[in-house]
C-alpha cells in the first residue's frame, strides 16, 4: 500500500496544434462560405431550410411557366412573355422577404450571442468580417435571381428562339442582378447590424423596402398620369432601393424599365448610376463603421 506515489499527474493526451496556421484570407473565405450556406439554411436545422428553399421554389415557378409558354407558343411569338431584366422587379416581394429573413439571421445572432468579439480575437479584421457577410448575402441573392433566369434561358433555347439575342439579354440581366443583389444586401445588412433582436431587424427591413416601394410607385403613378409630369415622377425613383436599381439597369444595360416612370433623360440616368454606387458604397462604409467598435448590448 505504501509503494504508490503520493500525487500523480495523469497524462491525458493533450497535444499542441503544430499544423499550418491559415491566415486572414482563409478565415474570411471560411466565414463567407459559412454565411452563404447559412443563407440557404445549409448546415443549419431543417426548420431553417424551409423558408429559403420555399422562396427559391416560389421564385422559380413563374420562370418555369414563362419557359413553358415560350415552348407551347413558339409558333406564335419569338419573344419571352417577360424580358429577363424585368423579372427581378416583378418578383421584388420575394427578394424583400429573403433579405428580411436572412440579413438578420446572418448578423443579429452574432451580436445577440456575443460571438462577434470571438471572431475579432482571431486574425480576422473588421473589414474582413463585413466583406464576408456582405459578399455572402449578395451571392445568395444573386443565386436567387439567377436560378429563374437560367430556367427562362433554357426554355428559350428549347423553343429555338434566336440564341445569340437570348444569350446577350441574359448576360445583361445577370449584370443587373449583381447590382440588385448588392443594393438589397447592403441596405438589409446595415439595418440588421443595428439590432441584436432578430424580430426587430426583420420588421425594420420590411418596412424600408416594402413601404418605400409602395409609396414611390403610388406617387410616381399619380404624378406621372394625374399631374402629367414624367420628369418629376422619374426622379422619385431615387427614393426606393428597388426603383433605384431598376433605374440603374434601365439606363446602363438598356433594359426595359418596370418602374412606373423610368429615370428622366441622360442626366437622370447618370444620376441614377451614381446614386446606386453611392448607396452600395455608403452601406459598405456604414457597416465598417458599425463594426469598428462592437459594444455588446
Amino acid at each position: 500500500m505504501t509503494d504508490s506515489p503520493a500525487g500523480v499527474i495523469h497524462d491525458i493526451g493533450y497535444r499542441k496544434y503544430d499544423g499550418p496556421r491559415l491566415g486572414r484570407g482563409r478565415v474570411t473565405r471560411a466565414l463567407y462560405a459559412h454565411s452563404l450556406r447559412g443563407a440557404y439554411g445549409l448546415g443549419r436545422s431543417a426548420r431553417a431550410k424551409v423558408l429559403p428553399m420555399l422562396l427559391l421554389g416560389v421564385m422559380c415557378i413563374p420562370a418555369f411557366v414563362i419557359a413553358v409558354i415560350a415552348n407551347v407558343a413558339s409558333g406564335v411569338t419569338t419573344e419571352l412573355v417577360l424580358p429577363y431584366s424585368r423579372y427581378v422587379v416583378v418578383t421584388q416581394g420575394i427578394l424583400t422577404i429573403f433579405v428580411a429573413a436572412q440579413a438578420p439571421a446572418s448578423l443579429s445572432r452574432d451580436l445577440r450571442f456575443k460571438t462577434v468579439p470571438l471572431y475579432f480575437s482571431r486574425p480576422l479584421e473588421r473589414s474582413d468580417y463585413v466583406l464576408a457577410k456582405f459578399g455572402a448575402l449578395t451571392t445568395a441573392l444573386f443565386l436567387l435571381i439567377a436560378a429563374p433566369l437560367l430556367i427562362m434561358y433554357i426554355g428559350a433555347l428549347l423553343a429555338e428562339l434566336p440564341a445569340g439575342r437570348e444569350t446577350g439579354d441574359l448576360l445583361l440581366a445577370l449584370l443587373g442582378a449583381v447590382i440588385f443583389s448588392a443594393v438589397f444586401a447592403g441596405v438589409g445588412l446595415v439595418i440588421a447590424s443595428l439590432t441584436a433582436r432578430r424580430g426587430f431587424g426583420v420588421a425594420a427591413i420590411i418596412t424600408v423596402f416594402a413601404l418605400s416601394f409602395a409609396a414611390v410607385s403610388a406617387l410616381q403613378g399619380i404624378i406621372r398620369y394625374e399631374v402629367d409630369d414624367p420628369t418629376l415622377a422619374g426622379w422619385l425613383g431615387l427614393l426606393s432601393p428597388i426603383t433605384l436599381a431598376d433605374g440603374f439597369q434601365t439606363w446602363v444595360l438598356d433594359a426595359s424599365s418596370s418602374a412606373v416612370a423610368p429615370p428622366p433623360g441622360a442626366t437622370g440616368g447618370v444620376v441614377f448610376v451614381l446614386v446606386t454606387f453611392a448607396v452600395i458604397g455608403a452601406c459598405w462604409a456604414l457597416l465598417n463603421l458599425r463594426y469598428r467598435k462592437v459594444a455588446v448590448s
Partner: protein
Amino acid sequence: MNATVVRLTYRALLGGRRAWLLLLMSVLLLAMAVLLRVTVGVDHQVTADFLGAVAVAALVPLFGLIVGTGVIGPEIDDGSIVYLLSKPISRPRIILSKFAVAAVGTVLFAAVPTFVAGLVMSGTAGRIALGFGAAALVASVAYSAIFLLLSVVTRHAVVYGLAYALIWEGLLGSFVPGARTLSVQQWSLSLTEAISTRDLVSSDVRLAVAGVLLAVVIVGATWYAGQRLRVLSLAGEE
C-alpha cells in the same frame, strides 16, 4: 383582459425609441399627403389612388404586421413568455390583452393617420376620408388579430405575414381574381365603397359578405391564438 398584461405589453411595444420610429412612418404618410395636396391640389381620384395604394395596401398591413407580431413575438423569441404563462391568468385572457394593445396601436398609428391624410387631401367631400378611415380601422383590427395568431403559431411570423401581405394580396391578387375575395384589403375596401358617396373605389367583395368574413377572422383568429398559447412549446434558437 388583464390590466397588468396590457400595461407591460404597451411598454414593451412603445417604450423607448420604438414609439418614435413607428410615429415616423405615420408622419411620412401625412407628409406625402400634404405634398400631394400642394402639388396636385384637390383631386378626389388622386386621394383614392394614394390612400388605396399607400395607406390601405401598404401602411396598414405593415403596421398590423409589426405591431401584431411585436406584442408577443419577442417574448416567445427570448423565452421570457414562460414568466407570463406561469402566472394564474388564463391563456385566452393573455391573448385578449395582447390583442387589445395591438389593435389600439395599429388603429392609432395607421388608421388615424389614414383618416387625417384623407381629410388633408379631400376634406370632407364625398365622405372619402371617412370611407378610407373606416376601411383602415377594420383592416387594422383584422391584421392585428391575424398576425398575433401567426406569431403564436410560428417563429417566422413576420416573414410569413409579409408573404401573405405582399404575395397573396399584392402579386396573386393582381393576377388571380379569386385570391381577391380572400383578402383583408378587399374586405375593408368594400366598406369604403359603401361609405363614400363618390364612385372611386370598387371592391370585389360585397359589404355583407365582407362584414361576416371580417368578424369571423377577427374573432376566430383571437380565439384560436388563445387555444394555441395553451399548448405553446418553447423551442430553442432555430
